């Protein structure tokens, strides 16, 4: 709540972590002390005039004048309504304060976001709830909420209507139900009789209103924020905008901005709250003496960020780090698991890559270029080694900030995609391909996204081109004697579809996404044309084709097929390092769990007995270190990281909010009190006594101890590698990466234990 932690609070009003009511009460008291001229219930409907002479019209018709106006109206006040006749009936609510207020009612909940789902869940305890979703699927809520919702639906406590739109709301007089909600379902109009409608459709910037004040927005995008100067001044001089409406949803930011704006208006020199932090980042960079010069340098030398406003750039830099590595220093190594993003401000960087065939290539990057995007996008190991050149000034941005930027600023995403596309084509097809051919190849390339289980193409489909897997992984299968037999597993950085392309026949197999997958489709015609002109790429694709033909000639292996299907169904497709137990050797001693607990404060991070089993292969409940970890998605203090070796771990900055636990689809994160736990000594082992007891979950004063999220960290920092594997007396427990495992099993050789470290 008091995020972002790095920023100091400027305002003299207090603000910190706490419950909503307390904070509001504090503010009320402090405002009263400051003798602020506060008007409540005074909705503003119009602002006109200019700096020094603004005229403000209230909803009551009253007029006020002001020299300056600071808009800090946020978004929440502008709730999205149903947008159909009847939307303003008193029993149509857009807020739910206390779900227990209603009892034995029939309530329709509209809006499949998290608030909607949470409301429906809370109401379903003592009411009949009908849940309406405009879309076919529940994609806008978290997985955890979706699971809870589905559980209630299965139990029959909540009814759902999908692909359903509101048509109108009517008042009902005929019977006990005061309302009739008319909705358009895929099967036609339906009249739902109910007591109440609760619509949770989010809020939107009150754009029309703000535009009527004369404020301009940069584009017509519904999420666009007004263009502001560095001092938060809009194009209307004297009219300032801060807070969520300006694109800063965090309270602390808004408070700081409010403070700064008032100081600007008073003519007091004031540095933005982040000035000192940013200044520290830029110190030592040649030719940069101030933050604004630093920002100007980025603007000038890094076209990727051209689309950002100065304010956005400042915020972006707050998360990033400026590096001045000496020439020849290694920035990251090939096969590292780091996933930050680098942009070059000055100097050069050399990237050394190695193709699948062992061909080595080096690329020179200069100011204005960026690198590290492949690891970021694919969630896999680095595909090359980056070495700093002369006079290098780099900006390193952590994964989360970069992803946020990609999602929120389409301009950055577009530019990044253009460059990334060529790089991945070069990397997965042929690193010696000339630039002109590359250009030709990627024209009209389509980025396609697939959910788990979705097909890229079916056996017998017409050949449409080459699919480069940029992110995720796919499974190749074929119908043999009426049964779907898995032939291969293909991971990111490889391609599928070459069989049909080379043989000029329809696709010979079905390809399905094994994890959320992004694929780039290169048009067949272009690929063929380029292959005709370039013998090197031709021979590469041909040899790949022959390899596949060879593999296909082998008799289908039912065991392999079954195992792959089993592992895929259980999400191993998106794993990077998963613990499996060969049950034909497991003597069920649970030493894996005991050793894990011993090394990790008495709390085991795996559950041996839980989890699925296929024939003799058991998949215990334990972290798989996903390529794109679900746990990282929504971690307020950004406490979950991936180390260069690939372990996804939770750092000490965990605040115990439990989001990661809810987001993990595999249930491998637990919230645990931090215990003092000591390993058992030899005499304790011999006499079977336990070590020091973990302290109880309560402090001495009876207050409960704060819990933090714990999960497997692959015994990071413990020499020798994961203890679950090392402590297995019979060698039944082993760790694999899906790639290594499947390629080895497919070739019929024995999969070896993955070497830790």
């Amino acid at each position: 709540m008091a995020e972002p932690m790095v920023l100091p609070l400027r305002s003299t009003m207090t603000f910190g972590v706490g419950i909503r009511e307390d904070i509001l009460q504090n503010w009320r008291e402090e405002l009263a002390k400051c003798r602020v001229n506060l008007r409540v219930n005074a909705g503003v409907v119009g602002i006109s005039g200019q700096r020094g002479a603004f005229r403000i019209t209230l909803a009551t018709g009253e007029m006020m004048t002001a020299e300056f106006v600071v808009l800090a109206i946020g978004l929440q006040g502008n709730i999205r309504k149903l947008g159909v006749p009847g939307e303003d009936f008193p029993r149509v609510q857009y807020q739910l304060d206390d779900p227990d207020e209603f009892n034995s009612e029939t309530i329709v909940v509209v809006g499949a976001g998290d608030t909607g789902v949470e409301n429906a869940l809370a109401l379903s305890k003592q009411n009949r709830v009908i849940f309406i979703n405009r879309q076919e699927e529940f994609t806008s809520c978290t997985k955890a909420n979706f699971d809870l919702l589905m559980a209630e639906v299965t139990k029959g406590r909540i009814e759902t209507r999908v692909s359903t739109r509101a048509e109108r709301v009517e008042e009902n007089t005929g019977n006990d139900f005061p309302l009739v909600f008319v909705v358009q379902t895929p099967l036609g109009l339906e009249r739902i009789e109910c007591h109440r409608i609760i619509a949770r459709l989010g809020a939107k910037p009150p754009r029309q209103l703000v535009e009527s004040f004369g404020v301009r927005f940069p584009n017509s995008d519904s999420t666009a924020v007004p263009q502001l100067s560095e001092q938060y001044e809009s194009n209307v001089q004297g009219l300032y905008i801060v807070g969520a409406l300006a694109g800063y949803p965090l309270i602390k930011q808004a408070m700081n901005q409010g403070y700064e704006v008032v100081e600007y208006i008073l003519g007091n020199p004031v540095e933005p709250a982040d000035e000192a932090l940013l200044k520290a980042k830029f110190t030592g960079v040649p030719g940069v003496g101030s933050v604004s010069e630093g920002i100007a340098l980025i603007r000038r030398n890094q076209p990727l960020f051209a689309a950002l406003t100065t304010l956005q750039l400042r915020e972006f830099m707050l998360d990033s780090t400026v590096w001045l590595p000496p020439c020849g220093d290694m920035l990251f190594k090939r096969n590292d698991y780091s996933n930050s993003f680098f942009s070059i401000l000055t100097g050069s960087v050399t990237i050394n890559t190695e193709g699948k065939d062992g061909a080595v290539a080096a690329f020179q990057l200069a100011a204005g270029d960026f690198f590290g995007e492949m690891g970021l996008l694919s969630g896999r190991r680095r595909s090359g080694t980056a070495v700093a050149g002369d006079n290098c000034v780099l900006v390193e941005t952590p994964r989360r900030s970069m992803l946020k930027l990609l999602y929120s600023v389409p301009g950055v995403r577009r530019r990044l995609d253009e460059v990334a596309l060529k790089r991945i084509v070069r990397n997965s097809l042929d690193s010696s391909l000339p630039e002109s051919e590359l250009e030709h190849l990627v024209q009209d390339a389509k980025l396609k996204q697939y959910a788990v289980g979705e097909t890229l193409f079916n056996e017998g489909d017409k050949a449409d081109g080459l699919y480069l897997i940029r992110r995720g992984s796919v499974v190749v299968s074929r119908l043999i004697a009426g049964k779907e037999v898995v032939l291969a597993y293909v991971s990111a950085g490889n391609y599928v579809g070459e069989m049909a392309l080379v043989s000029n026949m329809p696709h010979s197999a079905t390809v399905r996404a094994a994890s959320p997958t992004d694929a780039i489709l290169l048009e067949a015609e272009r690929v063929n044309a380029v292959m005709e002109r370039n013998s090197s790429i031709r021979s590469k694709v041909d040899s790949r084709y022959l390899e596949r033909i060879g593999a296909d000639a082998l008799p289908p292996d039912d065991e392999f097929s079954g195992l792959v299907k089993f592992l895929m169904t259980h999400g191993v497709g998106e794993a990077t390092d998963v613990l499996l137990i060969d049950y034909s050797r497991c003597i069920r001693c649970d030493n894996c769990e005991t050793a894990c607990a011993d090394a990790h404060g008495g709390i085991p991070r795996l559950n041996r007995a839980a989890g699925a089993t296929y024939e003799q292969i058991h998949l215990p409940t334990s972290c798989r270190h996903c390529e794109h970890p679900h746990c990282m998605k929504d971690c307020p203090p950004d406490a979950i990281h991936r180390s260069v070796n690939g372990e996804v771990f939770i750092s000490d900055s965990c605040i115990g909010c439990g989001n990661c636990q809810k987001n993990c689809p595999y249930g491998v994160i637990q919230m645990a009190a931090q215990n003092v736990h000591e390993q058992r000594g030899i005499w304790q082992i011999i006499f079977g006594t336990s070590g020091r007891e973990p302290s109880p979950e309560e402090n001495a004063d009876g207050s409960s101890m704060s819990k933090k999220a714990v999960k497997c960290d692959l015994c990071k920092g413990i020499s020798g590698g994961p203890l679950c594997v090392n402590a297995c007396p019979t060698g039944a427990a082993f760790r694999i990466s899906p790639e290594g495992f499947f390629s080895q099993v497919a070739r019929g050789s024995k999969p070896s234990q993955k070497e830790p470290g």
Partner: protein
Amino acid sequence: MNTTQRSGVLNFMHYRYFKLSSMLMVAAIVTYVLAPVGDEPYGGTWLGYVLGIVSALIVLLLLWYGIARRRTPRVRYQRPHPKNGGHKQAGSVQPDFSLRRWEDRGRHLAKDAWSHGGTLQGWLSSHIYLGASLIVLATLHTGFQFGWDVHTLSYVLMLLVIASGFYGMYAYLNYPRLITLNMGEETLDDLLHKIAELDELARIHALGLPDEVNALVLKARQETRLGGSLLRQLSGKQRNCPTISAARQILQLGSKYIKNEQPELMRDLYAVLLRKERLVLRARHEIKLNARLQFWRYLHVPLAVALLAALLAHVVAILFYW
């Protein structure tokens, strides 16, 4: 299955410990055959002493396995080095990059330790082969001179420990697979839960049927035993299991109760009891397999402790009568 071809306890590190113990045994036999033997008690010869000391050391090593198995390798967190190497970093200290440096260090250290360090699987492999080699080493140490004394007692205890160990090896190699085949993804608790549910279901079905049937159902519910004494666990059987006999009798009584809904109820009841019978058999099989997998250790470990005591007595006696 391919996956089971990863190195096992017996072929660990290309039979490293098999080779080691074979060499020990061959060396001992060759020396025994070639070395001149005097008239004194064999253990007192120089070869007897050597064999005795080697055997005793092996016994201690084998006993240490019991501790190694329960002891997690010491956790040594590699403290990050305060100065991260090389980089001139602009601005204030940012944890991110220095973290990466630490990780780099961690990786190399971890790899070193891995290549030198041991896994528990290695321990077990050596435990088996060195244990087996004692049969030869200790027997040669006796010089085939036995008597009713503490020396022979140690020898016999050792053989018993090894014999139980051999059984254990057999169990470890065979039962795990059978347990999975029997249980699949389910646990014993799951089965017990289902059995309880079926008992309840059977009771409800029987309500509409005569007392004779109710008595059978009640008996099946109250007197069906799972597990129990060690022997019962190991046998995995219950003589005249009330569930099985109830199912049989219900089948026979089917022709007797043919009024109104009775045939239907009898059919349902029979189906329920059959399902329960299958679950009970599976649960017993599970208990049996687990008992057979585990019970030998209750012989192996106490016998090993007794061996240690006898061995101490043996050594003290020898030193005393030197």
